[in-house]
């Protein structure tokens, strides 16, 4: 009886896992192929410090900062009778998409298959001048994942 229950639970677990996996793949394909605006999703429970040995820290942020396209995420608006610059969230998403792919394309470690990487960009808007970013990128069929964490700061001069 116990064995039977274990088997049933195993089957149900496997079916559930399969369903989740298929759904994830379908979603991933849908997101990847979509030309529409990318909508952010909430990130409920993920502690980056718990990442296992498959994750490798890779300093990509400095190259992102030097990429010329990065300025496209900035808007100028009028506030209190003054023009100020702010980071526009929707522009941030579309710009990061372009910038990261451009950086991977020009990085010798990723340039061969830069277009195949899945890029997970977790971000938190602290102010309209400051965004915290956790970036993970990996090939779908590879265990190995890369990540980097950085602050993006808009400053005046």
């Amino acid at each position: 009886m116990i064995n039977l229950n274990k088997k049933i639970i195993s089957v149900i677990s496997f079916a559930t896992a399969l369903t989740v996996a298929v759904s994830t793949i379908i979603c991933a394909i849908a997101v990847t192929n979509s030309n529409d605006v990318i909508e952010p999703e909430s990130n409920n429970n993920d502690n980056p410090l718990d990442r296992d040995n498959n994750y490798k820290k890779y300093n990509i942020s400095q190259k992102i900062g030097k990429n010329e396209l990065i300025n496209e995420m900035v808007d100028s608006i009028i506030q209190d009778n003054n023009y100020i610059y702010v980071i526009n969230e929707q522009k941030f998403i579309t710009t990061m998409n372009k910038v990261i792919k451009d950086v991977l394309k020009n990085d010798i470690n990723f340039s061969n298959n830069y277009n195949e990487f899945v890029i997970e960009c977790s971000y938190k808007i602290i102010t309209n001048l400051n965004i915290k970013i956790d970036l993970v990128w990996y090939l779908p069929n590879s265990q190995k994942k890369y990540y980097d964490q950085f602050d993006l700061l808009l400053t005046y001069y």
Partner: protein
Amino acid sequence: MGYYVNEIPNNKNINKYFYINKVNGILEIKDGKWFYNLSFFCINNFNLPLNSLLFDLCIPSQTVSEIYINLSPDQSAITNDIENYQYCKIYDCNFQIVVDGDKYFEQPLNQAMISHKVYMNFDPNPLNSYENKIQQDILDKMMNEVYNQKLSFDLIYSNIYYANNQLDCIDVDYKYDLYSQSISNSKIININYEMKNYQNSTNSIITLCSISSANYFNIIKTKVDFFYSINKNETKNLSYEVNAPTLKVNNFTLDFVGCTSFDSSTNIIIHNLDGLRGFFSPKNCTGYYTVELLIEINSVIKKIFFQNNYNFKDSIINFLINIQPTVINDLRKFKKVIF
């Protein structure tokens, strides 16, 4: 402004059957239309019946044909010059033609020379009932002389004024007196103007230009173009028009309407008609602006074209995106996008 008349030399030894002489005229511009009032003497050796002479007026835009010449009520203008003609008759040819100048001259004319030609013509029909029949060979010769008669005069005219100095005065011609063998006069109205030149940032409303006159004037239309180049890249254009007229004023000040914002992703300055007034651009922006004012003053329509350079220096702060490494240990309040 000047004009000249191709007159037949008044050589008494040549027994011409027909010639024209002593041209006087007025050209008046009202509401963009040109009103001609020409008078000249037609001298012929026959007592030609009324309405036997016609003429065509050709100016670059259009031909006005079959305008009959009227007999002058005042024949006292006979001079000694024509006394030797056996059958002398003086015609005072007075007519008025309306030419829609602005309709034809859509392109701006800056001190353009406009040639006018008046071709004489002949209507033989009234002669059929003319009691003093003219011999056919003489009639043919006279008709030939009539056809070969033409007046021509050139007007120097401009419907646009290019304001180049910061402060100056514009002369608007509204009436031309046409005299034979002399420089004609034109009557003018003065418009004073002033252009501002901005080099530094300002928190005040940006005044592009101002005009004033002793006469009332109407601003029919305004067009403003800002040509700008950021970081010496390709020159782009920001343009807007104001079609609502400003009527019956002595002074007019044109301010920049609305405000601009800079889209750093496209390097384009965007014009917003709402909100604050001001022209905002990055400090590394140079260029010039042009203003076209279509004004009506004393029924004369004239376009005034202002052009002024601007160069913003040290006026607007720039921005930089810095990347700094950090440690994140909790992603629960983070949003996530997958590319």
